[in-house]
Protein backbone atom coordinates (compact mmCIF):
# COMPACT_ATOMS: atom_id res chain seq x y z
CA UNK A 1 0.00 0.00 0.00
CA UNK A 2 0.91 3.64 -0.17
CA UNK A 3 1.42 4.09 3.55
CA UNK A 4 1.23 2.43 6.93
CA UNK A 5 -2.28 1.31 7.79
CA UNK A 6 -3.70 0.34 11.16
CA UNK A 7 -6.93 -1.30 12.24
CA UNK A 8 -9.20 -0.78 13.93
CA UNK A 9 -9.01 3.00 14.04
CA UNK A 10 -11.04 3.06 17.24
CA UNK A 11 -11.50 0.39 19.87
CA UNK A 12 -13.57 0.51 23.02
CA UNK A 13 -12.96 -2.27 25.50
CA UNK A 14 -14.32 -3.08 28.90
CA UNK A 15 -11.72 -3.41 31.61
CA UNK A 16 -10.40 -6.94 31.65
CA UNK A 17 -11.01 -7.63 27.97
CA UNK A 18 -8.24 -8.64 25.58
CA UNK A 19 -7.63 -6.52 22.46
CA UNK A 20 -5.60 -7.00 19.29
CA UNK A 21 -4.36 -4.09 17.20
CA UNK A 22 -3.10 -4.61 13.67
CA UNK A 23 -0.43 -2.81 11.69
CA UNK A 24 0.26 -3.14 7.96
CA UNK A 25 3.64 -1.51 7.26
CA UNK A 26 4.80 -0.09 3.95
CA UNK A 27 5.67 -2.95 1.64
CA UNK A 28 9.35 -3.87 1.81
CA UNK A 29 10.05 -2.03 5.05
CA UNK A 30 12.34 -4.03 7.27
CA UNK A 31 11.79 -2.19 10.54
CA UNK A 32 8.54 -1.88 12.44
CA UNK A 33 7.92 0.08 15.63
CA UNK A 34 5.03 0.37 18.06
CA UNK A 35 4.55 3.53 20.11
CA UNK A 36 1.99 4.51 22.72
CA UNK A 37 0.72 8.10 22.83
CA UNK A 38 -1.19 9.28 25.88
CA UNK A 39 -3.43 12.33 25.61
CA UNK A 40 -1.37 15.52 25.38
CA UNK A 41 1.94 13.66 25.27
CA UNK A 42 4.42 12.64 22.64
CA UNK A 43 4.61 9.03 21.49
CA UNK A 44 6.58 6.63 23.68
CA UNK A 45 8.42 3.63 22.31
CA UNK A 46 7.00 0.19 23.03
CA UNK A 47 8.77 -2.35 20.83
CA UNK A 48 10.81 -2.85 17.66
CA UNK A 49 10.96 -5.55 15.00
CA UNK A 50 13.54 -6.11 12.33
CA UNK A 51 11.79 -8.40 9.89
CA UNK A 52 10.21 -11.07 12.10
CA UNK A 53 12.66 -10.68 14.97
CA UNK A 54 11.60 -8.66 17.98
CA UNK A 55 14.90 -6.99 18.84
CA UNK A 56 13.73 -4.57 21.49
CA UNK A 57 10.73 -4.81 23.76
CA UNK A 58 12.06 -2.61 26.51
CA UNK A 59 9.15 -0.17 26.28
CA UNK A 60 6.35 -2.64 26.86
CA UNK A 61 4.80 -1.49 30.15
CA UNK A 62 3.86 -4.91 31.48
CA UNK A 63 3.65 -8.57 30.60
CA UNK A 64 0.05 -7.94 29.53
CA UNK A 65 1.44 -6.41 26.36
CA UNK A 66 2.60 -8.73 23.62
CA UNK A 67 3.61 -8.01 20.01
CA UNK A 68 4.38 -10.26 17.08
CA UNK A 69 5.35 -10.05 13.43
CA UNK A 70 5.50 -13.69 12.39
CA UNK A 71 6.19 -13.28 8.67
CA UNK A 72 8.12 -10.04 8.83
CA UNK A 73 5.27 -7.96 7.45
CA UNK A 74 2.00 -7.44 9.33
CA UNK A 75 2.31 -6.94 13.07
CA UNK A 76 -0.17 -7.36 15.89
CA UNK A 77 -0.03 -5.72 19.30
CA UNK A 78 -2.06 -7.61 21.86
CA UNK A 79 -3.07 -6.30 25.24
CA UNK A 80 -4.46 -8.78 27.71
CA UNK A 81 -6.79 -7.93 30.60
CA UNK A 82 -6.96 -4.28 29.61
CA UNK A 83 -6.83 -1.62 32.31
CA UNK A 84 -7.98 1.99 32.22
CA UNK A 85 -4.37 3.20 32.11
CA UNK A 86 -3.99 1.39 28.77
CA UNK A 87 -6.26 3.99 27.17
CA UNK A 88 -4.13 5.76 24.56
CA UNK A 89 -3.43 6.01 20.87
CA UNK A 90 -1.24 3.16 19.65
CA UNK A 91 0.91 4.16 16.71
CA UNK A 92 2.75 1.88 14.35
CA UNK A 93 5.69 3.06 12.24
CA UNK A 94 7.83 1.39 9.63
CA UNK A 95 11.15 2.24 8.05
CA UNK A 96 13.07 0.88 5.12
CA UNK A 97 16.36 0.12 6.84
CA UNK A 98 17.21 -2.28 9.61
CA UNK A 99 18.68 -0.47 12.57
CA UNK A 100 20.07 2.45 10.66
CA UNK A 101 18.93 6.02 10.78
CA UNK A 102 16.12 5.92 8.28
CA UNK A 103 12.87 7.80 8.33
CA UNK A 104 10.02 6.25 10.29
CA UNK A 105 6.63 6.57 8.62
CA UNK A 106 3.63 6.44 10.92
CA UNK A 107 0.18 5.02 10.53
CA UNK A 108 -3.00 6.83 11.63
CA UNK A 109 -3.04 5.03 14.97
CA UNK A 110 -5.61 3.05 16.91
CA UNK A 111 -7.37 4.98 19.66
CA UNK A 112 -8.05 2.54 22.51
CA UNK A 113 -10.51 3.49 25.22
CA UNK A 114 -10.85 1.16 28.19
CA UNK A 115 -14.00 1.65 30.24
Amino acid at each position, binding site marked *: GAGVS*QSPRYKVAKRGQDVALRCDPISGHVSLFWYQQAL*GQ*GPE*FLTYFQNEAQL*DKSGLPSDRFFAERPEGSVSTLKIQRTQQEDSAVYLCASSLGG*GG*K*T*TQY*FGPGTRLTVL
Partner: protein
Amino acid sequence: SQELEQSPQSLIVQEGKNLTINCTSSKTLYGLYWYKQKYGEGLIFLMMLQKGGEEKSHEKITAKLDEKKQQRSLHITASQPSHAGIYLCGADAGGATNKLIFGTGTLLAVQP
Protein backbone atom coordinates in the same frame (compact mmCIF):
# COMPACT_ATOMS: atom_id res chain seq x y z
CA SER B 1 11.09 13.00 33.61
CA GLN B 2 10.92 14.16 30.02
CA GLU B 3 14.07 13.35 28.05
CA LEU B 4 13.27 15.82 25.30
CA GLU B 5 11.83 19.13 26.47
CA GLN B 6 9.79 20.93 23.83
CA SER B 7 8.68 24.55 24.02
CA PRO B 8 6.38 26.31 23.83
CA GLN B 9 3.56 23.91 24.61
CA SER B 10 1.18 26.01 22.55
CA LEU B 11 1.47 28.97 20.25
CA ILE B 12 -1.00 31.31 18.59
CA VAL B 13 0.36 33.52 15.83
CA GLN B 14 -1.09 35.87 13.26
CA GLU B 15 -0.90 34.74 9.68
CA GLY B 16 2.32 35.95 8.11
CA LYS B 17 4.33 35.96 11.34
CA ASN B 18 7.44 33.90 11.96
CA LEU B 19 7.76 31.41 14.79
CA THR B 20 10.25 29.03 16.37
CA ILE B 21 9.75 25.80 18.29
CA ASN B 22 12.62 24.49 20.42
CA CYS B 23 13.63 21.12 21.79
CA THR B 24 16.39 20.57 24.32
CA SER B 25 17.74 17.47 25.98
CA SER B 26 19.75 16.94 29.14
CA LYS B 27 21.10 13.67 27.84
CA THR B 28 22.82 12.77 24.61
CA LEU B 29 20.37 12.04 21.83
CA TYR B 30 21.09 11.86 18.14
CA GLY B 31 19.66 13.46 15.06
CA LEU B 32 16.46 15.42 14.70
CA TYR B 33 13.11 14.35 13.36
CA TRP B 34 10.17 16.72 12.97
CA TYR B 35 6.65 15.43 12.60
CA LYS B 36 3.30 17.17 12.34
CA GLN B 37 0.14 15.68 13.79
CA LYS B 38 -3.47 16.67 13.40
CA TYR B 39 -5.99 15.59 15.99
CA GLY B 40 -7.04 11.99 15.47
CA GLU B 41 -4.42 11.37 12.83
CA GLY B 42 -0.99 9.88 12.66
CA LEU B 43 2.33 11.66 12.43
CA ILE B 44 3.27 13.24 9.13
CA PHE B 45 7.02 13.28 8.49
CA LEU B 46 8.44 16.75 7.87
CA MET B 47 12.22 16.60 8.07
CA MET B 48 15.16 14.58 9.32
CA LEU B 49 18.64 15.85 10.19
CA GLN B 50 21.42 13.47 11.04
CA LYS B 51 24.51 15.57 11.49
CA GLY B 52 25.29 18.01 14.24
CA GLY B 53 25.35 21.54 12.94
CA GLU B 54 23.11 20.62 10.06
CA GLU B 55 20.33 22.89 8.83
CA LYS B 56 17.64 21.94 6.35
CA SER B 57 14.83 23.92 4.75
CA HIS B 58 11.72 22.92 2.87
CA GLU B 59 9.31 25.55 1.62
CA LYS B 60 8.92 27.89 4.61
CA ILE B 61 10.10 25.48 7.28
CA THR B 62 13.70 25.31 8.53
CA ALA B 63 15.06 22.76 10.98
CA LYS B 64 18.35 23.11 12.84
CA LEU B 65 20.37 20.67 14.89
CA ASP B 66 23.12 21.55 17.36
CA GLU B 67 24.14 18.18 18.72
CA LYS B 68 26.91 19.57 20.93
CA LYS B 69 24.46 21.74 22.83
CA GLN B 70 21.62 19.21 22.42
CA GLN B 71 19.45 21.96 20.95
CA ARG B 72 16.98 21.39 18.18
CA SER B 73 14.62 23.84 16.52
CA LEU B 74 11.97 24.35 13.88
CA HIS B 75 11.40 27.76 12.34
CA ILE B 76 8.41 28.68 10.21
CA THR B 77 8.60 31.81 8.09
CA ALA B 78 5.46 33.75 7.12
CA SER B 79 3.07 31.30 8.77
CA GLN B 80 -0.15 30.26 7.05
CA PRO B 81 -3.34 28.62 8.36
CA SER B 82 -2.19 25.39 6.71
CA HIS B 83 0.71 25.28 9.18
CA ALA B 84 -1.68 24.78 12.09
CA GLY B 85 -1.35 21.49 13.98
CA ILE B 86 0.77 19.75 16.58
CA TYR B 87 4.50 19.68 15.95
CA LEU B 88 6.54 16.90 17.51
CA CYS B 89 10.31 16.79 17.69
CA GLY B 90 12.03 13.45 17.91
CA ALA B 91 15.57 12.24 18.44
CA ASP B 92 17.31 8.91 18.22
CA ALA B 93 18.02 7.29 21.58
CA GLY B 94 21.14 5.64 20.18
CA GLY B 95 21.96 1.98 19.90
CA ALA B 96 20.93 -0.39 17.17
CA THR B 97 17.18 0.04 17.51
CA ASN B 98 16.76 3.56 16.12
CA LYS B 99 13.85 4.07 18.49
CA LEU B 100 12.76 7.68 18.74
CA ILE B 101 12.34 9.80 21.84
CA PHE B 102 9.68 12.47 21.36
CA GLY B 103 8.95 15.81 22.92
CA THR B 104 5.49 16.54 24.28
CA GLY B 105 4.48 18.53 21.23
CA THR B 106 3.65 22.14 20.36
CA LEU B 107 0.12 23.05 19.41
CA LEU B 108 0.24 25.77 16.75
CA ALA B 109 -2.75 27.89 15.78
CA VAL B 110 -2.47 30.45 12.98
CA GLN B 111 -5.07 33.21 12.97
CA PRO B 112 -6.06 34.54 9.54
